[in-house]
């Protein structure tokens, strides 16, 4: 990074970072992204058939079956052109092609969970565990949903002790911010040494 004064109006981003927000439909991904960042429309393609998978040169393939998928996309611009991008993607396996790219070099992932549908979170948790992507579980507390203790939720989700599990209300800015802070703190611990795994870490 140069030491020239940074002018956000003309200089654009200098450093870009990614955070994934994963979770089932209706769990609050869009709300989370919209609460903490400048949310914008973004589309990506979804391949509908297996044809062409693994073929690198697709020049001239005109009828490849694709459809576009809307993602939750937000940006937080910090000092000196550091830009944090949030990508909210559905948790189903058919969307994993997006995650493969998004999780590469990412700070980590927030798995947004709903206690009424914890099953929706398993695929996401499994994915990030296997990939070694730092992640936290943020349980969105919906009005009317029965409140569970964090330990009950952790036990039901069967996540490792070092993975933070936090309660949140993504409609509230401070709460949504805290979710991101917890993830960045966890990523710092995970990124340093593999020894961070298994350490006793504070929850939430």
């Amino acid at each position, binding site marked *: 990074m140069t030491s020239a004064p940074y002018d956000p109006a003309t200089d654009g981003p200098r450093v870009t970072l*990614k955070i994934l927000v994963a979770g089932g439909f209706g769990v609050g991904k869009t709300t989370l992204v919209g609460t903490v960042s400048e949310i914008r429309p973004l*589309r990506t*393609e979804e391949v509908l058939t297996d044809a062409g998978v693994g073929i690198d040169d697709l020049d001239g393939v005109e009828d490849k079956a694709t459809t576009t998928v809307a993602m939750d996309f937000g940006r937080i611009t910090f000092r000196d052109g550091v*830009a944090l*991008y949030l*990508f909210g993607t559905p948790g189903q396996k058919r969307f994993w092609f997006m995650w493969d790219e998004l999780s590469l*070099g990412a700070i980590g992932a927030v798995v947004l969970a709903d206690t009424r549908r914890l099953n929706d979170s398993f695929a996401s948790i499994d994915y990030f565990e296997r990939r070694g992507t730092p992640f936290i579980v943020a349980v969105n507390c919906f009005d009317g949903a029965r409140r569970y203790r964090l330990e009950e939720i952790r036990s039901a989700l069967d996540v490792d002790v070092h993975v933070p599990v936090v309660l949140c209300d993504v409609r509230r800015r401070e709460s949504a911010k805290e979710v991101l802070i917890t993830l960045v703190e966890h990523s710092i611990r995970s990124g340093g040494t593999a020894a961070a795994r298994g350490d006793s870490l504070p929850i939430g």
Partner: protein
Amino acid sequence: MTRGRTRPTTGVQLDVVAIVVGTGLAVTDTTRTTPERQRLLALCGRPQALADLASDLDLPIGVVRVLVGDLIDQGLLRIQPQPTSSTAHPDQRLLRRVLDDLRAL
């Protein structure tokens, strides 16, 4: 628009948050100029993340990646290097800075 291609022909892997910027080279090959390319070049008068370009142009990320790849091949755009490679885990110093900035939001 991309002539059916779903991946860039350039050997460069463009991350979704890679920063691209115009090189300032004059457009000489007008036969390949389309409104999308012109808008991309105009936006890239300042550095832009690939995802921001896709959002601004209202085009899917994959389409923008192909178009940007072409413009890089033609020498009209270049990737702006970053202190941390977009495919490596971000370094601790950068993460600590982001943490401070998030807390100050």
